[in-house]
């Protein structure tokens, strides 16, 4: 039985190396995506929901730590880092799996043995250790988006992000819906995710971010599916299976 795996690493040679080693050390592993930055890593996770993710800590867009926070306890996370003594100490005390770059075969075998053992169990909660590491080491300060520029006909409209009811992916663009109107911005949704306040805009689907203040209710469609009803709009937004936990009592 194959195991779905995601490998996120920004340097091409290091990425190839980890993929080659996984291929020979863990034949059951099926790599579903090998993104080269944090933003694509999160998007690929949403697309494939792999069982295991290998996350480089230092990545552009979003760090491996940020991606791990978003994944939560929905995948087994293995961090990969070249040299970060503080993180390594924290991972050791928190029993979080990690690999040191360059990854050496013996060390990888050990990590894989541990992974196989707990594959069927619910993934460990790494959030506490991640918080600890983020607090202790300097994190890139990414400024949160306040305004969006959207072209409407001949005009460029400035949209206050807080007035947005929800964002919806539309191939290379993003549909921005407000109470009285809507607009299209030329940025893919995955690139907007990192710039938005995760506490204000909940991701309920790979292609949907919704403003918490605009949610009127969430209702069950069947055993698996849910949908969100909004204030100020008649649209109904589907909630994908992996995000239904947001609305559980």
């Amino acid at each position, binding site marked *: 039985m194959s195991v779905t795996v995601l490998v996120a690493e*920004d*340097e*091409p*040679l*290091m990425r*190839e*190396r980890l993929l*080659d080693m996984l291929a020979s050390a863990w034949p059951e592993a099926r790599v579903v995506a090998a993104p080269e*930055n944090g*933003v694509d890593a999160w998007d690929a996770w949403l697309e494939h929901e792999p069982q295991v993710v290998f996350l480089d800590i*230092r990545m*552009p*867009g979003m760090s491996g730590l940020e991606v791990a926070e978003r994944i939560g306890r929905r995948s087994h996370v293995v961090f990969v880092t*070249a*040299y970060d003594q503080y993180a390594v100490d924290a991972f050791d005390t928190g029993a979080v799996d990690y690999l*040191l*770059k*360059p*990854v050496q075969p013996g060390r990888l075998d050990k990590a894989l043995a541990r992974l196989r053992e707990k594959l069927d169990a619910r993934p460990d909660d790494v959030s506490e250790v991640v918080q600890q590491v983020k607090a202790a080491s*300097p*994190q*890139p*300060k*990414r*400024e949160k988006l306040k305004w969006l520029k959207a072209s409407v006909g001949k005009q460029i409209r400035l949209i206050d992000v807080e007035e947005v009811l929800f964002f919806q992916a539309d191939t290379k663009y993003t549909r921005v819906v407000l109470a009285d109107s809507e607009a299209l911005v030329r940025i893919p949704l995955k*690139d907007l995710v990192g710039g938005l306040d995760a506490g204000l805009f909940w991701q309920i689907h790979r292609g949907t971010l919704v403003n918490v203040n605009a949610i009127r209710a969430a209702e069950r469609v069947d055993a698996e599916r849910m949908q969100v009803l909004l204030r100020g709009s008649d649209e109904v937004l589907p909630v994908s299976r992996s995000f239904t936990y947001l609305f559980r009592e």
Partner: protein
Amino acid sequence: MWKRIEQWNREVEAEQLAVLKDPTMVAQLPAGCRRFFARKLAGMSPAERESLYQFSSTVSTSAALLALVKLCVVLSVLGLLINLAFLPDRLWWHTVIAANAIGLAMAMSLMGVWFNYGKIVRAKGKALVTIVGLGLVGGLFGGLTAMFETGGDWSFLLDKLPRIVVTVTIVVTALVAIPTIVVAVLRNRHYQILAEQLRRDAEQERLARELSETQLRLLRAQIEPHFLFNTLGAVQQLAEQGAPRAAELTSHLIDFLRASMSDMRSEQVALTTEFGLVDSYLRVMQIRMGERLRYRIDLPDALAATQVPSMLVLTLAENAIKHGIEPSMHGGEIVVTAHDDGGTLRIGVRDSGVGMSDTPGAGTGLDNVRHRLRLAYGEGACLLLSEAEPGLLAEISIPCKEPQ
């Protein structure tokens, strides 16, 4: 007439003060008596000149003349008292003149010795002989005068000669030579302690400077573990694939390590050496980062031999990678340039990465660069950062130096 004397005096005073402040001024003076005295002043030790300068610049000619008059009055009174108490058979104005002559001579010699002690101490024996010899000449002159005045003959002088010699030697030695030499020795000891103190201070300052320079260089020379591990990982991967680029990457890494280790030992390197180091670093990074990194290095031939503090440009290049290109989703380009901007050397490292807002911990490397620039050039050099739209430009400006 008086005005002209005053004018002349002011000129000489200014001239002498200038020479005391800067002995090389002597060369600009017209040859002659003034230059002769100025050269004497210039020949004194710096500490002697300094104390004489202090004295001359606070005490004006008129004040000195007034002091001289006061001294003469005191000496005259002293002469009168001596005349009344010990030598009632001499004419009173003879003793007054003698007292003034002896007193002024002592004052002059003490003043001379106060400011020019170094020379006296250097030629202690010679000074003694000179003083006593001059005394003897004076004594003989006195004896001869007495002989002609009393209408005596040569036998009178020959008769008195031994007494004159002994008396003059004792009196001159006691009144002039010994005080002169004692004052000179004391002053000289004081000067030597002062000079020693100054020398020690300078030495200490030099050592502290060297130490901080070395510490900063060592700090800088620590090769980042992240860099080393990631590069070794890349080498390992290429080697395992049997790619010829494995050897290429290894040789760039070797170049980089060798250059950074030899640069670590030297304070200053030629710009071409430093740019070579930056080139091997960026080559390594380019193989590792693939398409995400492009770079260009431009060094005009005329600047190749210009000396700059080692590893400064490398620090800027590493900063550009770490805080500009690596955090950028789509990578970018680094351009390293140098040019002579009318006597100022400008070295620029521009990256088209994420710019200034996204750079946590960017300070330490740049602080180190600023610190070392200050150590090497004082306030003459600087490091400026500016937004480059997109990205960041870091520019070092230093005063141009001729290649050594």
